[in-house]
């Protein structure tokens, strides 16, 4: 499906020189007549949310950079909780590097989840871009494994107990589950071996994320960039050169993003941290309520529906499977929710549902919360397996804009604006 030659924007082996590497990163001009210029363009009707790909790349770079310097100062295995105090107090700027990494993980996931939701709303996972979507999901899974293994390293109470709680699900693998968990943890419970294992996994999976992101970006380049109208760009009027229009816009987005990140790191760095993690891990004292990192909570809630770890594992794998199958579960031929009157409210209901799922996952499994857990999990699968195909069948999309027409990013009057009057480009063409 991803290979359908719907557009002429297939992979073209153009000689990549140092000068045009940035342009070639996204789209190579197809050899067809529809793109008469020999340089990289992006659809002019991409919205602000399309910056979240770049922002995710910036987040990842910062995580790798801070991670390298943290790895130089982290002492594995002796007294991990004291190591964090050493990092925060004794290492020069250790507090900065550590808080950037700690808050940065949450920021990275916020950006990645916005990127994911953007894909759902604008239907960018549909042909010919199913591969981009699925590679994005692979990246997300690798990110979650990286975050899961990294969260143990501070060796706080919540690190310890949420690691155990999530490892329980892996024990649901038939026949070998218990052995697999023992093998990963290096023991029947968490110890020095678990710490060295997870420290190594954390670094290995971080590099796996970098690799997955590279393949994800390659897929965007090969299948063409999406846009908010879900209409393929076919004419010169539909696109703008990557440079300077998108470099400048993305540069501004990165600046705003870095300012917001700085506010988090310098003023509210512990926003995403659970209070119990300021206590050293104690294998004999269970916290009253085990809460994994917020970005794992919806999936954690799904695993908690079942008392049996095998069923829990099946449920969470199914939750991922429906995401991977989304390009086929969403049967509508129209991509963007801008032209899908029924899908639009359904999308927002789904977003609320996922937040509710995470909210339920953050509470103890008393009878009431367990009921809500199961209800929200049921609705999650109902959305993908029943609501989405149904909407595709009964919905009448509003008319799509015709490519190369004023509706595609142009003003309602029908006149194309000159480049200088486009939003965000004022002043670019005048010296």
């Amino acid at each position, binding site marked *: 499906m991803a290979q359908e030659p719907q557009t002429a924007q297939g992979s073209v082996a153009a000689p990549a020189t140092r000068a045009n590497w940035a342009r070639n990163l996204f789209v190579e001009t197809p050899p067809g007549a529809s793109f*008469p210029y020999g*340089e990289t363009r992006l659809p002019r009707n991409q919205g602000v949310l399309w910056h979240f790909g770049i922002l995710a790349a910036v987040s990842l770079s910062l995580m790798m950079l801070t991670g390298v310097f943290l790895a130089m100062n982290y002492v594995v295995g002796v007294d991990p909780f004291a190591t964090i105090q050493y990092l925060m107090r004794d290492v020069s*700027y250790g507090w900065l590097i550590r808080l950037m990494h700690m808050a940065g993980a949450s920021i990275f996931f916020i950006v990645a989840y916005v990127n994911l939701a953007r894909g759902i709303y604008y239907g960018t996972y549909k042909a010919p871009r199913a591969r981009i979507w699925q590679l994005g999901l692979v990246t997300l899974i690798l990110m979650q494994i990286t975050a899961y293994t990294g969260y143990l390293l501070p060796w706080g109470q919540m690190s310890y107990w949420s690691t155990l709680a999530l490892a329980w699900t892996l024990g649901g693998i038939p026949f070998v589950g218990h052995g697999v968990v023992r093998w990963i943890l290096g023991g029947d419970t968490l110890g020095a071996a678990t710490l060295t294992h997870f420290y190594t996994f954390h670094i290995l999976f971080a590099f796996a994320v970098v690799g997955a992101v590279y393949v994800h970006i390659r897929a965007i380049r090969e299948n063409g960039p999406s846009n908010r109208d879900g209409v393929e760009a076919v004419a*010169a009027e539909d696109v703008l050169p990557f440079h300077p229009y998108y470099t400048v816009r993305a540069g501004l987005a990165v600046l705003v993003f870095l300012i917001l990140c700085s506010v988090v790191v310098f003023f509210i760095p512990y926003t995403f941290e659970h209070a119990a993690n300021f206590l050293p891990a104690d294998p004999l004292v269970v916290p009253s309520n085990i809460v994994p990192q917020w970005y794992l909570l919806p999936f954690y809630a799904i695993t908690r529906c079942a008392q049996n770890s095998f069923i829990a594992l099946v449920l969470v794998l199914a939750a991922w499977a429906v995401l991977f199958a989304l390009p086929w579960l969403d049967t509508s031929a129209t991509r963007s929710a801008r032209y899908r009157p029924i899908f639009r409210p359904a999308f927002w209901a789904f977003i609320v549902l996922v937040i509710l799922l995470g909210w339920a996952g953050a509470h103890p499994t008393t009878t009431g919360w367990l009921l809500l857990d199961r209800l929200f999990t049921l609705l999650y699968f109902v959305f993908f397996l029943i609501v989405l195909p149904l909407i595709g069948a009964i919905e009448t999309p509003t008319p799509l804009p015709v490519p190369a027409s*004023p509706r595609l990013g142009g003003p309602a009057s*029908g006149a194309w604006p000159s480049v200088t009057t486009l939003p965000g480009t004022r002043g670019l063409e005048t*010296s």
Partner: protein
Amino acid sequence: MAGPAPETVATGAAAAAHHEDHPGPRRDFLKMTLGASLVVGLGTAIWPFLDTMDPSKNLMARTAVSVDLAAIPVGSGITVIWQGKPILVRHRSPAEITAMANVDILQLRDRASDLSRVKTGHPEWIVVYGTCGPDGCVATGNQPSDNRGKWGGWVCPCTGSEYDVSGRVRSGPAKQNLGVPPYDFVSATKITIG
């Protein structure tokens, strides 16, 4: 399309060419400002990262180390660790004190009087850094049974340099005397290094 013909739309190569053709002073100024900001900003931002690799503050903290001198017999010395570095503390005999005071300073490679290397009123105690070579070698000679060299002080096992019992270099490749760390007498039998 009711608008102007595509030719008037500055896209693609036309736009790029247009943009290159007008290198006015305003654009130059903006480019230079941006470049300077990037250099200064990135340079500032990279410093905290590099600084994390410097010695950590707990190592560098001038935490005082107390040494009880009462347990050191005359003619012997001990080695203590201060800020991760070895410090030699030696109890000198009256003969050694006299010999050190009578050394002709002009003959020394690194000229220093014995008085300048001990605390006033405590000539029997000499406290010096034990690091004697560029590779972090620690001088031997604390125990009477150790090789103390021709001048009876310390010997550097790596370079072969010999020091007198005031810690001054007397032979071998070394150019400088063993340094004197900051320390003070808390009582007659107790010093605090740092």
